């Protein structure tokens, strides 16, 4: 049995989870990472994806739309911009999230016409958002890039 640590998932509007977890899978900006107890202290930004928490009572999954995670040896906090338990993400909610990402991408494309950097980032966010739908088994709408 792996060591347990304190896991908190908070969004600006509420605290979604606070449990003794054994491992947490985080969609980091540079790739997914699984953190367990005694992980080296790290702060990472998140991309849209699924946070999976494993604790003694099973596993919980949350859909997050971005934010960051603070990992300390005995405590992990995920501060998500927007977070929902996976069960609450219905097709409708999901479509709205994709739409938002699409809108953000469109405005970025307008604002930074000749700079590929920010546009690529927004496109990646949008693609990530769309990929989330595939993960949780919702029908995906293809983004217009």
């Amino acid at each position, binding site marked *: 049995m792996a060591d347990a640590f304190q896991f*908190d998932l908070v*969004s*600006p509007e*509420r605290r979604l989870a606070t449990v003794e977890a054994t491992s947490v899978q985080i969609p*980091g*900006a540079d790739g997914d990472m699984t953190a367990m107890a005694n992980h080296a202290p790290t702060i990472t*930004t998140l991309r849209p994806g699924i946070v999976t928490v494993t604790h003694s009572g099973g596993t919980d999954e949350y859909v997050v739309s971005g934010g*960051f995670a603070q990992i300390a040896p005995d405590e992990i906090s995920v*501060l998500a911009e*927007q977070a929902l338990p996976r069960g609450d993400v219905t097709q409708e909610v999901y479509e709205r999230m994709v739409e938002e990402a699409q809108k953000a991408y469109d405005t970025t494309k307008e604002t930074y016409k000749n700079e590929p950097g920010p546009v690529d980032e927004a496109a990646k966010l949008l693609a990530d958002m769309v990929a989330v739908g595939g993960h949780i088994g919702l029908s995906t709408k293809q983004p217009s890039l």
Partner: protein
Amino acid sequence: MPSLKDLKNRIDTVKSTRKITKAMQMVAAAKLRRAQEAAEMSRPYAERFNAVMAGLASSVGDSEGAPKLLSGTGKDDVHLLVVMTAERGLCGGFNSNIAKLARTHAKDLLSKGKTVKILTVGKKGRDAMRRGYSDHFVGHIDLSDVKRVGYENAREIAQDVLNRFDEGEFDVATIFFSKFENVVTQVPTAQQVIPFETPEGTEAPDALYDYEPSEEAILADLLPRGVATAIFSALLENGASEQGARMSAMDNATRNAGDMIDKLTIEYNRSRQAVITNELIEIISGAEAL
């Protein structure tokens, strides 16, 4: 001397006023509980966020390429005052206290030769700030259609402020709102959001963190969010304060209406008694004359 009918009408008027204020007080009490809960729910996020920011700010803050949102533009000539108030009145001194603080602040800055720009959130603040400072107005954000303030609203306001900052419209941004202490005390507060200032009482994490992707990239990502987070907390504090202020204002109004009804009722009874006495005298003197 008002007639009996006049008095009766007045008593009825005050009675229905009392009913309204009583109802408003109860509605405010129910809303206050919800607003307070919302404010408490947002606290864990804000606290952690500020702790991480404090750590980042102290490690990157002094280096040269620090983002402008953290280090400032190097000047402090143009100040943006974001005045956040309620959409409705009838809440005691709530709106005017915030506006007063903002006005004192503006006057202070103007006397130092700075340029002041004012952005208002909430109709009541706009009306109050327009008096005397209409030349400094740069915008207004309407939240009157919003039933329950969410993070989305805060993000929109923050986006507006950040766009203005990117276009070099101002150097320093300060938000004005009312901090909720308890039902009877709300403290009008000014908080600087750009450049970022660590709120008091925040402890920076002492561990040395690895940053992924890099410190600078994370900081660039977090700073705009910091503005949104600060505005969101302020909006929630404001929401709770507004309901608290309205509750105590309406409580007072209900009590005053009660006092007034008592006074008017006494007056009414006295004049009715006077009328009866008068009639008796007339009858008796009429009988005596026979």
